[in-house]
């Protein structure tokens, strides 16, 4: 894959999306959508306005907290369950079922337990992210190639040494995948959590715009969120691919 072909693909994609956007706008009218040019301009206004950044910071802070809980908590949980055979066999299906729950269903419960405010956002975000991190970590440890464990035994490594020098490096690629997915999930969870639980933050701004039917604002904010989430994901993918290349 030449770099040139790849750039061409991206250009095609962006051009195609732009075109589709314009066509839909022509068809649906300004009540439904705002045109690409105006939306981008509004985005620029947001990024340079003084009111925007406190909200962005509020969202960012809640997201950071949620990430710490989800990623670190998920890792600890996953490594503990993955390391112990019995614990893993008992716990993994439970985690898997919990992961498959439509977490939006738990939203009212979270609001009741944590009240309206930052902790609800953080809790909801962490709730989304912790499961994939843990599940991937468990999978990574359980899928360790048995021949590596045998090799460690032949080399007469102590258990802790085996874990540190063989198991963990071998499991790292899959763990990193889990971290990436957990990161994205936490972001989504935090944003959803913000919609009704907050008087600050980007989700709150979005709800306000929705209530006021300000289509331009809705689209500009949406695009900003999309852009942030997509770039963060792309960045993490690059990291992940480098870890997996080995």
């Amino acid at each position, binding site marked *: 894959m030449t770099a040139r072909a790849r750039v061409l693909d991206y250009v095609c994609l962006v051009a195609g999306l732009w075109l589709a956007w314009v066509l839909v706008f022509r068809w649906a009218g300004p009540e439904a959508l705002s045109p690409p040019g105006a939306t981008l301009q509004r985005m620029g206004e947001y990024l340079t306005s003084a009111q925007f950044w406190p909200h962005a910071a509020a969202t960012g802070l809640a997201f950071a907290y949620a990430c710490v809980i989800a990623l670190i908590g998920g890792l600890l949980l996953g490594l503990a369950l993955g390391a112990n055979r019995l614990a893993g066999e008992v716990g993994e299906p439970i985690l898997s079922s919990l992961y498959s729950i439509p977490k939006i269903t738990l939203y009212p419960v979270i609001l009741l337990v944590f009240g309206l405010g930052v902790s609800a956002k953080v809790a909801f975000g962490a709730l989304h992210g912790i499961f994939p991190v843990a599940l991937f970590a468990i999978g990574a440890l359980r899928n360790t*190639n048995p*021949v*590596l464990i*045998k*090799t460690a*035994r*032949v*080399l*007469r*490594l102590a258990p802790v*040494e085996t874990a540190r*020098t*063989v198991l963990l*490096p*071998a499991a*790292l690629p899959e763990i990193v995948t889990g971290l990436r997915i957990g990161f994205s999930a936490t972001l989504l969870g935090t944003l959803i959590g913000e919609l009704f639980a907050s008087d600050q933050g980007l989700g709150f701004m979005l709800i306000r715009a929705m209530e006021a039917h300000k289509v331009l604002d809705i689209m500009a904010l949406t695009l900003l969120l999309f852009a942030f989430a997509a770039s963060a994901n792309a960045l993490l993918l690059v990291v992940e691919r480098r870890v997996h*290349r*080995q």
Partner: protein
Amino acid sequence: MAKAALRRETAAAMPGRATAFSDTHVALRGISHTYPARAGHGAVAALGPLDFDFRRGEFVGVVGPSGCGKSTLLDIIAGLLVPTSGTIEMDGRAITGTVAQGVGVVFQEDATFAWLNVWDNVAFGLRRAGVAPAEIVRRVDYALAFMGLAEFRRAYPSQLSGGMRQRVCIARTLVLQPRLILLDEPFGALDQQTRLLMGEELLRLWRETAATVMLITHALDEAALLSDRVAVMSARPGRLIDVVTTGWPRERDSALVADPAFGALTSRLWALLREESRKALGVR
């Protein structure tokens, strides 16, 4: 047959070569193993009972039909598995469930560490054993040169072919200067030509280290070519049907395939195994 006898005589006359392997390195008595019942199937009698002596410095090939317990046998000798009955002694000391010092194992599957380059892979065991850095460099460089991997020192396993990766695994074993080397069908995934070349390298390794070598292989010709003695196992549960002495000289290589004694040996092994292989196929 006459030629083989002549060969043995000339071999005996070669200076500095031990003609008879007299000293027992590893002794197996009454070894048998049954895998316990698990979900889905009952207990499996995999091996034995089996008696065998490995003499110090000899090259033993082990052949047998699939499922006859060869890998189980290797695991037991390595100390990775405790047999359900029987005893195993190395240098007079009993082995039970822990890997003794000086044992090297090369597995059938690729056991390279994907996250380390070739040099670090080979150095891994030495680093864990706390060997001095200068000594590590010396041994690793030597092993890489010996196995023809010197120019790939910085490459990662994913960039190497299967044969190269096995060489890395062998090099990793070599640097630890083992006195007992166990190989479980290490060349199973390779094509015939590569196997012949790797077999020669294995012989070089054996001569270099003066270690006792046990090679499990399903290729009868490989066993006949490389070994001093070939242990022939029956279908599951694997028992020793026969032990065939080849009488090859120590300085041997793949040119031996032209020797009629080689053909005779191979057909003798097949004659022993044909019925057992049929059984194994039917059982499966």
